[in-house]
C-alpha cells in the first residue's frame, strides 16, 4: 500500500527510522540471530560447548509425527482465539460507539481486564474453571454439564481459547473504538437520513471505513495467538491432556525454556518464523487489497 503523495528528502527518512532500527538491531537482531544460529548446533545450555550438526535439529523435529500434529492444534487454536477476540470486541465497540452517556465508564470497564497481570489471571481462571475448586465448574456440575478439561481435550481447548481471547478482547475493543470514533459523523447522519437502519449503516459505512483497523487487528491477533499464548497454556493445561493443547509455540517454550534443548527449540523457532512470515505476507498481499484507506 502506498501513498500517492510523498515528501522528497534524502536523509530525513533514515534519520526518522534510526531510533527504532537501532533499538531493534541491538536488542532484537543481535540476540535473535544468536538464538537462531543454535538451530544448527547441539549446544549445552551453559554455553560451554556447542557442536555444529547442520540440519540435524530440523530433521529431528520434522520427522516427529507429534510435532506435525501440533500444526493442526495451532491452526485451530489460532483461528478460534482470533475470531472470538475480534468478534466480541467489534460487537462491544459498536455498542459503545453509540452510547453517549457513560461511554467513558463502559470503556474503562472493558479495558479493565487487560490490566490484570498474567500470573494472576492464570490463578483466577483456576479459581473459576478448574474442576476441583472452580466456582463456575461447581455450578456447571450442579446443572449437570460435564466439564473436565483435565482429561477431555476439547474442554481443555475451550479453556485455553477463552482465557487467551479474554485479554485480547480489551485490546481489540480499544482500537476498534478508536477507529469508529474517527468515522465522520456526517456520513452516518447522511445515511440515517436516507433511511438506512443501524445494522445497514454499520455494515455499509462504518465497517468498510474501519478496514485499516480491522486489518491491523487481524494481523496482530494472529501473531498474538501464535506467539504470546504459551504462558496461558503453561499455567492452565501444560499442553495437555495428552497433547490436546500443545501448540507450536508452547512446544518451543517447553523444549527450550523449560527443557533446555536449545538446538531443537531454535529449529522450531525458525520453522515458526517461516510459517508466520508467509502468513503475514499473504495477508499483506491479498487481504490488504480489500482494505479501504
Amino acid at each position, binding site marked *: 500500500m502506498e501513498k500517492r503523495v510523498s515528501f522528497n528528502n534524502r536523509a530525513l527518512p533514515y534519520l526518522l527510522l534510526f531510533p527504532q532500527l537501532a533499538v531493534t538491531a541491538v536488542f532484537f537482531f543481535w540476540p535473535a540471530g544468536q538464538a537462531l544460529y543454535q538451530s544448527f548446533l*547441539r*549446544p*549445552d*545450555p*551453559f*554455553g*560451554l560447548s556447542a*557442536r555444529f550438526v547442520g540440519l540435524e535439529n530440523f530433521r*529431528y523435529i520434522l520427522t516427529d509425527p*507429534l510435532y506435525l500434529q501440533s500444526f493442526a492444534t495451532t491452526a485451530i487454536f489460532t483461528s478460534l482465539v482470533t475470531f472470538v477476540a475480534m468478534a466480541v470486541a467489534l460487537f462491544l465497540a459498536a455498542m459503545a460507539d453509540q452510547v453517549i452517556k457513560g461511554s467513558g465508564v463502559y470503556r474503562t470497564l472493558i479495558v479493565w481486564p487487560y490490566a490484570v497481570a498474567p500470573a494472576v489471571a492464570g490463578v483466577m481462571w483456576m479459581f473459576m474453571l*478448574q474442576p*476441583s*475448586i472452580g466456582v463456575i465448574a461447581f455450578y456447571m456440575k450442579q446443572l449437570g454439564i460435564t466439564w473436565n478439561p*483435565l*482429561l*477431555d481435550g476439547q474442554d481443555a481447548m475451550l479453556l485455553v481459547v477463552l482465557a487467551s481471547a479474554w485479554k485480547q478482547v480489551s485490546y481489540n475493543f480499544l482500537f476498534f473504538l478508536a477507529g469508529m470514533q474517527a468515522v465522520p459523523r456526517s456520513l452516518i447522519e447522511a445515511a440515517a437520513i436516507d433511511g438506512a437502519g443501524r445494522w445497514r449503516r454499520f455494515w455499509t459505512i462504518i465497517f468498510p471505513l474501519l478496514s485499516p483497523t480491522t486489518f491491523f487487528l487481524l494481523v496482530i491477533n494472529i501473531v498474538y495467538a501464535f506467539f504470546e499464548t504459551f504462558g496461558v497454556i503453561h499455567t492452565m493445561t*501444560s*499442553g*495437555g*491432556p*495428552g*497433547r490436546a493443547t500443545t501448540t507450536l509455540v508452547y512446544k518451543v517454550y*517447553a*523444549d527450550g*525454556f*523449560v*527443557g*533446555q*534443548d536449545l*538446538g*531443537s527449540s531454535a529449529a522450531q523457532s525458525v520453522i515458526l518464523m517461516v510459517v508466520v512470515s508467509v502468513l503475514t505476507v499473504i495477508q499483506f498481499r491479498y487481504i490488504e487489497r480489500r482494505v479501504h484507506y
Partner: protein
Amino acid sequence: MSLRSITMAAAVATAFVPISGAMAQDKTEIQWWHAMSGRLGDLLQQQVEQFNESQDEYEVVATYKGTYSETLNAGIAGFRAGEQPHIMQVYEVGTATMMAAKGAIKPVYQLMEEANEPFDPNAYLAAVAGYYTTTDGEMLSLPYNSSTPVLYINQQALEEAGVDPDTKPETWPEVEELLVELKENGVECPFTTAWQSWIHLENLSSYHNQPFATEENGFAGVDTELVFNGELQNKHIAMLADWADRGLFTYGGRGSDAGPLFRSGECALYTESSAGYAGVKAEAEFPFSVSSLPYWPDVEGAPYNTIIGGASLWVMSGHDDAEYVGVAKLLSFLSSPEIQAQWHQDTGYLPITNAAYELTKESGFYEENPGTDIAIIQMTGKEPTPNSKGLRLGSFDQIRAVINEELEMVWQGDKDPSAGLDEAISRGNQLLRRFEQSVE
C-alpha cells in the same frame, strides 16, 4: 498533565540510573537465587537473616527468581554473561543438566575441601543426599528441600462410610478393597494423586527395587535408557486405569493440582509429597492421617526405600576463593541440626542430616504431629540399592511431560496402559539420546 510533560518525566526518569550496589562495603556479598515463593520464601529469608546476624564477614542476599525453570534460566543467562550467583537452587529433574555443566559448577565436596570447612558426608542421610552424590560418594550439590511421597487419608470420610478411621492400608490390594468400600458407601472420589510420574512410576520402581532406567537409573552414565515398562509398572498403571474406569480414582491434574480435591474433603485418599503436610494441615477441616506409601506384597523384599523430589543448592563456578569460604560457611549453617530441624518441622521437607532427625525426635514434634515422621522412616528403613538411590536423567522435565501426556490418555481410556508406557519409553529415550549428544 499533557503528553509532553509525561514524555519529559519519563525521559528524566529513564536517563541512565544504574542502581549502585552500595551494600556494607566491608562485608563479602554472597548471592543466592532461589525459587521459593509464598510462605516458603519467607522461611528461607529467615534462615538467611539468621545467618547474616550470626557473623559479620558475609552478607547473604537471597533473591527470588521465579519458578524452578525460570530460576534455572536466570542462572544460565547469568552464567553466560558472567553474572552468575554463588548459589542456585535447582529442582531435582535439573540434576543431570547441572552435573553435565562441569565448567559451570563447583561440586559441594570440592568447595568444602578447598574452603577448609569441616564436612562429613556421612552425617547426611544417605537416602536424601544420595540423590545428589556420585557413585564414588562425592556430594555434588546440597539437598535443600527434599520430600518423598506418602499416603494421606481423610479420616472423617472413612468414618462416614462406616470404616474404622484409623485404617491404614499398607499394600495396593488393601487400598483397592478400601476404595471399593468407600465408593459403595457414597464417597464420590475415593482416591486421587499428585505428581503421577514421580509417585506412580519413579517411586513405584525404587520402592520395589526395580530399575526405572538402565545404568543405575542414569547414575552410571548418560547412555541410560528408560525401562519402566516392566511387569510391576504395567500391573500398577493397569490397576490405576481400572480404578479410573470404575470411578475409584479421579485424576486431578499434573503436578500437585489435585491438592484441592483432597484438602476440600472431596477425595478420601491422596498420594502426595510429604511436603504437602503443611498445606493439608492448614486447609483441611477434617481429621486426617498420614501413612506410608502402599506397596505390592508379591514383590520380594518390598518395600525398599522411596526416593526424594524437591531441589538442591548448586554452587556456581567463577567466584573468588574468599567468597567461596563464605558459601561453605552458609552451607554448613544450613546443614546444622537446629536449622534443619526447624525447616523440617515448618515445612514437612525431610531433614538432611541424622542429627536434625534426632533433634526433632527429642523435641517431641512427632508425637504432637503424628505422621510427620512417616516419610523419613519410609526412606531410611533399608539401605538404598542402585535402583533406589534416585534418578539422574537428562531432559528429565520433558520426560515427565511425556509421561504425563501418555498417562492422561490412559486414564481417559484412549490408550492401553501397556501401550502408554511403551510409547512414553520410546519418546523418552529419544530425549535421552539428544541429551547424551549435547553433553558428549
